[in-house]
């Protein structure tokens, strides 16, 4: 199922990526190429095979409920483009 230009624009919007109209044909071609490549998997017969989300046949490992991390505000905020006290600061996002 090839992507149309509107879908390309919508995917970019959902990822909050700015794209110019000029970019759309190129992105459309690239994305269609990726989808087409993945679609080859459709040719495999998976009749009776359980869905698999990982390669390892293992269950999730769990950890104990103990506080072992945190209290590193300086490191957490180190890459913030803007901060106020110990808060991250971003352009207003309210309605």
């Amino acid at each position, binding site marked *: 199922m090839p992507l149309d230009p509107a879908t390309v624009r919508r995917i970019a919007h959902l990822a909050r990526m700015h794209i110019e109209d000029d970019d759309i044909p190129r992105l459309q071609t690239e994305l269609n190429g990726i989808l087409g490549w993945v679609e080859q998997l459709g040719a495999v017969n998976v009749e009776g095979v359980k869905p698999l989300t990982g390669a390892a046949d*293992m269950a999730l490992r769990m*950890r104990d409920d103990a506080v072992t991390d945190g209290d*590193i505000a300086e490191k957490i905020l180190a890459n913030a483009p803007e901060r*106020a006290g110990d*808060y*991250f600061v971003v352009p207003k996002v*309210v309605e």
Partner: protein
Amino acid sequence: MSYTIEGKTGPWELVIGLEVHAQVISRAKLFSGAATVFGAAPNHQVSFVDAAFPGMLPVINRECVAQAIRTGLGLDAEIHLESRFDRKNYFYADLPAGYQISQYQHPIVGRGVIEIEGADGTTRTIGITRLHLEQDAGKSLHDQHPAKTYIDLNRAGVALMEIVSEPDLRSPEEAGAYLRKLRTILRYLGTCDGNMDEGSMRADVNVSVRKAGEAFRTRCEVKNVNSVRFVMQAIEAEAKRQIAVWEEGGVVSQETRLFEPGRGITRSMRSKEDAHDYRYFPDPDLLPLILDPAWIETLRADLPELPDAKKRRFMAEYGLPAYDAGVLVAEQASAAYFEAVARGRDGKFAANWVIGDLFAALNRTGRSIETSPVSPADLGALLDLITDGTINGRIAKDVFEEMVASGEAPGAIVTRKNLRQVTDTGAIEQAVADVLAANPDKVAEYKAGKDKLFGFFVGQVMKAMAGKGNPALVNDVLRRHLA
């Protein structure tokens, strides 16, 4: 009689479902070792995992899983031995990874039930569709700067249980009862503190309206309502809005809305237009969550007695009416207090004092049952003093007030203030004779047929005896003298 809202074209029924986000009680977050305590300095309870630094991997907290299982068991729900985690993708400044780890197709808990009680005492069973584990997002502060939003990630990654009901609720009152009941169950289980003020329980409300006998019409979702009262108000406001749309020949479109308590209306959240395009996919960082049935049975064995069972037991064991039992089991601490008072005593008598005098005193002094100035042992001792005739019921009220004020034991107060009931017939005879002698005109009126004056004589005698006369004996002696 079922609940309807009257429109121009006649009555409309409401169809309501609730999605409740309940913050899990745990020391550390769902997938990181950062602390969860409310009220810390901004960004001080954040690990690299919570802030989505590159290369960080989530590791699930066993206790958060246990809490979800306990809650599922408390809701009489299926526990799924295998569940999975998915990424729910959306863009927001307080969601550093750009996705929330949630459970979409394979939640840890499936169908369950909650029993709710109507104002008329009838019960109704509301279906639970599912419960799943997910991460909370950070907190955005919009009021700190005119053009900026401040972000605190302390809450980011804290475990939430999303508890989804079937669209079984039919009125704002039922929705309120459901929320209160769910909150009580969570608090009994110790899986969520149910504190709506601090945001540890929040509700998304799905509302649609229809004419009797119709299938469902389009619903709207009112997001993030944070009190039982607001949930009830939001449902009514949203239902009335939808009725107006349908009756004016319009069509309700499925959308996300926001309730404005100040104006009592809901309004569209335009920013949520993409809200249902979450592009879920299995989280490749997380293997399937496989539960050992033996572990589930261990958790089941350790569950506390839940409110419905406790209520039934209070009715059977202490002979309480359903209403009293319901009031007492709403909080575990109240139920425990009552039991400590009632054990070995008359249950209904104990319930009257706990629900009546004690709750009123707590209200008045702004205390909770946990910080009650009167211990259950002391209240029990007061009841014993009434039962064995040491003091009468009237004096007991004064002693109780004294206990609330000073925390002193009832026996000590009675001794110190010399409040023992007077059962000495001689003293009562004397007081009666004095009162009758002082009021010859009233005695004449009484004998002429003005029966109501009997109460006046009782009052005068009690007054003369500083309230300590045994009421039954005072009545007897008066009757004899007035005959």
